[in-house]
């Protein structure tokens, strides 16, 4: 088991290295650098000035050197001030060092955001915290509801409850966040006026009034999928021999479901819930933009829209890490929950 986890962690590190390299390459394509230079310099600058800005800020160094600097295996060089010829800070708002130092991800330095004029760490981690709160409430709503729907539907396959709940869960998987978000806003904010159509004020304090719509919108897309998986697993468990035995020895239907079926039926949904995280990530971006909630997704969109290299790299690192770690947890947890499966 331990060697399995270690090997998986090794693959994970390799995957993250490859992916950040790909992201690094794509962000540093010529048109993107041009865009960055234009947004960072004054209006109406000539092509030479743009080029000299890029050279001055170290964007014209070798690709691998710069990737190494970002990682922290190559020392970051201070830039040379063209006016005085002395070493200067690359970006003054980030307190960049004046002597060559190793300052990359390995050292815990995520770089400097050109859009927000601050260090990436000071932008990224509060945003992650905000998204964490959102995620917590989404999971707290989504998991119990979807498990309940799945169990009720799968308990008696083919019954009327099953049909109704199955169609309802199909409908919820067919409703992406930007559709349900619009519909909910129309109903609850514009028409009934019960809830706030914007979660911008949630950064100051979360209330039922400003936080329900984002949570509801995010949860509804996942509920259908998890419920269907739970239903499938429940249906399978209900046909097993031990369920029939339990029924034949005279237990009531309710206690068979609760005591014998539930525990076995909940193994599969665990994996599914874990694997939902990557999907939730896309949803988070949509919902945070739609309801103006300043979290991770909002930061990602800002970073991508302004070609903020270090911030976008930080965002990709975090999101790739989340995807990979949830995959690992789901594999290990599956083996843990189901003793019949032994990890090879």
């Amino acid at each position: 088991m331990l060697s399995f986890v270690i090997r998986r962690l090794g693959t994970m590190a390799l995957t993250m290295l490859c992916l950040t390299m790909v992201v690094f390459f794509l962000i540093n394509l010529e048109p993107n650098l041009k865009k960055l230079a234009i947004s960072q310099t004054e209006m109406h600058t000539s092509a030479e000035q743009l080029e000299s800005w890029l050279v001055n800020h170290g964007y014209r160094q070798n690709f691998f050197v710069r990737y190494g600097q970002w990682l922290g295996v190559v020392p970051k060089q201070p830039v040379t001030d063209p006016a005085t010829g002395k070493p200067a800070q690359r970006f003054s708002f980030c307190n960049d060092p004046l002597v060559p130092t190793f300052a990359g991800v390995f050292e815990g330095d995520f770089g400097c955001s050109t859009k927000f004029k601050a260090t990436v760490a000071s932008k990224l981690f509060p945003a992650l915290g905000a998204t964490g709160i959102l995620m917590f409430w989404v999971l707290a709503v989504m998991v119990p509801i979807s498990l309940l729907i799945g169990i009720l539907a799968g308990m008696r396959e083919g019954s009327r409850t099953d049909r109704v709940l199955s169609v309802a869960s199909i409908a919820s998987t067919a409703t992406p966040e930007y559709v349900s978000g619009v519909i909910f806003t129309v109903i609850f904010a514009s028409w009934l006026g019960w809830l706030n159509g914007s979660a911008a004020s949630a950064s100051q304090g979360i209330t039922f009034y400003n936080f329900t719509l984002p949570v509801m919108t995010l949860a509804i897309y996942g509920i259908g999928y998890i419920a269907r998986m739970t239903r499938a697993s429940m249906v399978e468990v209900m046909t097993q021999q031990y369920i029939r035995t339990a029924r034949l020895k005279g237990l009531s239907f309710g206690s068979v479901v609760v005591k014998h079926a539930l525990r076995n039926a909940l193994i599969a949904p665990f994996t599914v819930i874990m694997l939902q995280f990557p999907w939730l990530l896309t949803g988070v971006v949509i919902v945070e933009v739609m309801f103006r909630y300043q979290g991770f997704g909002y930061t990602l969109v800002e970073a991508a829209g302004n070609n903020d290299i270090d911030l976008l790299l930080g965002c990709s690192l975090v999101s790739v890490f989340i995807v990979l770690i949830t995959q690992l947890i789901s594999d290990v947890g599956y083996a843990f929950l189901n003793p019949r499966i032994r990890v090879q």
Partner: protein
Amino acid sequence: MPVQYISGFTVVLEVLSRFWPVWIALLIVMGTSFAYKKKLALYGQLFDSGVGIVGVGICLFWLFTAIFAATISPFDPLAQVPIMKDVLPGAIEPQSGLTYLFGGDKLARDVFSRMVYGSQIVLIIAPAATGFALMVGITLGLPAGYYGGKIDTVLSFLANLVLAFPVILLFYLLVTPGIMDTPIPYGMAGVFFLFPIIFFSVLFWTRYKNRPDRLYILLGITLILGGWIYAGLVFDADPLKIVHIDPNQLNIFVAVVFASSPGVFRIVRGLVMDIKTRDYVAAAQTRGESPWYIMLWEILPNARGPLIVDACLRIGYTTILLGTLGYFGLGLAPESPDWGTAIKDASRLLRSFIHPALPPTIALMSFVLGLNLLADSLREQSMKD
């Protein structure tokens, strides 16, 4: 001059009557399918359940809407009539006397016509991209599952690499305007669009290599047709100027294929690993058939059930993806009538006007719902066998 309105009931009647070509086509297709359902194998069995009929119905409805878009929509989706800015549903356009059935949007365009034309974009890109993703996934998944070993390790690692990318980040990186100045989209298109040609060439070669009379005809057709479309799509150099794709749309297309082929790859690989232990595969191996013959003519036909179901779900998922792209304003032109872009435009103004937001959301939702219902009932029917 104030804008005249017709009543809500008349709007409903008018909308229903505007769809007349769709109703006729639906009636013909559904009627014949229903009458001959016994002879239509899996497709016919769909008509045994209510869910299946509803699924087929919704999918066909949008298919015919896309085909007859020009007849159905009263206005040009891009035309702006200044007086009709933000009008409510049922407003009569004074010059032509026609009605803005679902009202006008903030640029004074007809919401109804835009919804109808939006279906064209979705129904061209989503199934085509899914088709290409299937080709790529199958061509790579078959050897990975069949041979295992090093090929499998390398291909699986690559597939997991793409799958570990959050979709939204992938699109922000791949579908930016800047990237179209680089050769990356064309390079990727060049690789992806090669797969169908390889697939069909190997398919015919393994089957008919001892029957040159058939082989040469089929290979010739594949190469000429494939090469023609390939030249048109990748190099935009179709000599007849029929096959043509916007650089914008090519970029989206490639990104969607790139994002969804690893999923197909994983499914195909899993299916192949299961099926290759069957007796008929062992029999074919004993007969001395070549590995690719076994993969394409013994294993693949037996994996078709789950693949068809997956394809249906995947078209739905691609539709959602296209909507997401439109919602973030990535790739598609800002005035494009596709549903995602329309939802984005309308959702910014929800506080003042809600009517431009509802038609595209309901259209997108119903189409994906139709595909999911179709997939669900296909799965149920194929499990019965």
